[in-house]
């Protein structure tokens, strides 16, 4: 169970910045092995100069996402068997973000857009006040709950071709967070949010490609959230409030 069954050829993107190439390594294959384990093995035993990023290793921090055989995935919870259909494993840095080195990207643009989307709670009370009563079955609460467990891994951001083409586009994760706040009874910035998501890079640029929802490892549905924002913005526009 613990001994390697065979070795596996793994192509890994190496390079600094945008320039680089794939390099192939032979990695022993085990029963229980994630893509992150494969990458770690290469760094530990074959080429110590390989750079990548991870933290929690259980799908909670969202720092380990990479392109695996051309698809964006969290690598710490992607079992190798799930992706090795044709016996090839190709690992590259996450799409749509600047590469620092090898498999590590610079996630700053992703988070800058998060803030730009006003996806930050707008406080309506303080630590001196009681907590707001919110009924768990309230329709709005349920809408807010739907997207709340985002781990900001940027998998959706990498899956989206609108992000690839439109530098201003805020992207699915930031918009989903904005939608969550829009449905949060305690948020005092609804109008600010609507305005932020209705501008040049806003929700209206989404073409419902659905890659975000297809790949979100937390099984969230940013596409639905964005549709919600579009609807809310349309209503506001018709009422002359945008």
């Amino acid at each position, binding site marked *: 169970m613990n001994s390697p069954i065979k070795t596996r050829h793994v192509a890994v993107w190496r390079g600094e910045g945008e320039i680089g190439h794939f390099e192939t390594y032979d990695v022993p294959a085990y029963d229980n092995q994630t893509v992150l384990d494969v990458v770690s093995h290469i760094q530990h035993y074959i080429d110590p100069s390989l750079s990548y990023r991870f933290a929690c290793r259980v799908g909670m921090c969202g720092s380990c996402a990479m392109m695996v055989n051309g698809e964006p995935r969290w690598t710490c919870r992607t079992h190798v068997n799930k992706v090795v259909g044709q016996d090839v494993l190709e690992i590259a840095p996450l799409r749509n973000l600047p590469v620092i080195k090898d498999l590590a990207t610079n996630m700053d643009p992703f988070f800058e857009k998060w803030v730009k989307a006003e996806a930050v709670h707008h406080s309506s009370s303080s630590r001196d006040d009681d907590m707001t009563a919110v009924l768990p079955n309230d329709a709005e609460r349920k809408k807010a709950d739907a997207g709340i467990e985002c781990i900001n891994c940027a998998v959706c951001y990498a899956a989206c071709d*609108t992000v690839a*083409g439109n530098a201003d586009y805020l992207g699915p994760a930031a918009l989903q967070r904005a939608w969550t706040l829009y449905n949060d009874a305690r948020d005092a910035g609804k109008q600010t949010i609507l305005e932020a998501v*209705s*501008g*040049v890079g*806003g929700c*209206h640029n989404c073409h419902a490609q659905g890659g975000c929802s297809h790949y979100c490892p937390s099984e969230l549905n940013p596409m639905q959230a964005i549709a919600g924002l*579009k609807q809310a913005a349309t209503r506001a526009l018709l009422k002359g409030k*945008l």
Partner: protein
Amino acid sequence: MLTVRLYMLQRVTALLMAPLVVGHIGVMIYAVQGGLSAAEILGRTQGSVFWFSFYGLFVLAVSVHAAIGLRTILHEVTGLSGRLLMFFTWGTALSLCVLGMRAILAVTFLVRGVS
């Protein structure tokens, strides 16, 4: 590159065109059954205010709609933005509008070319 306004324009024009296009295709299916000729088309449309408005509305809508659509695509594919993109959008809309209007006028009100 789409703001809420451009988005709404594109959707509104789309909604407008949907019945127009369906109507047009319906007529075409009916019309082409016996083969099509200039005379036959013109016989139907010449001098008709109804057909003028029908197609006129379509041309206006499609000019706006397609210009916005192409603008989005151009931006996403080439990264073009700012003034140039604006010129492109207006250019597309106006050319489509002029071409379209000319065609409609041809089949409705204008006297046929001096022969």
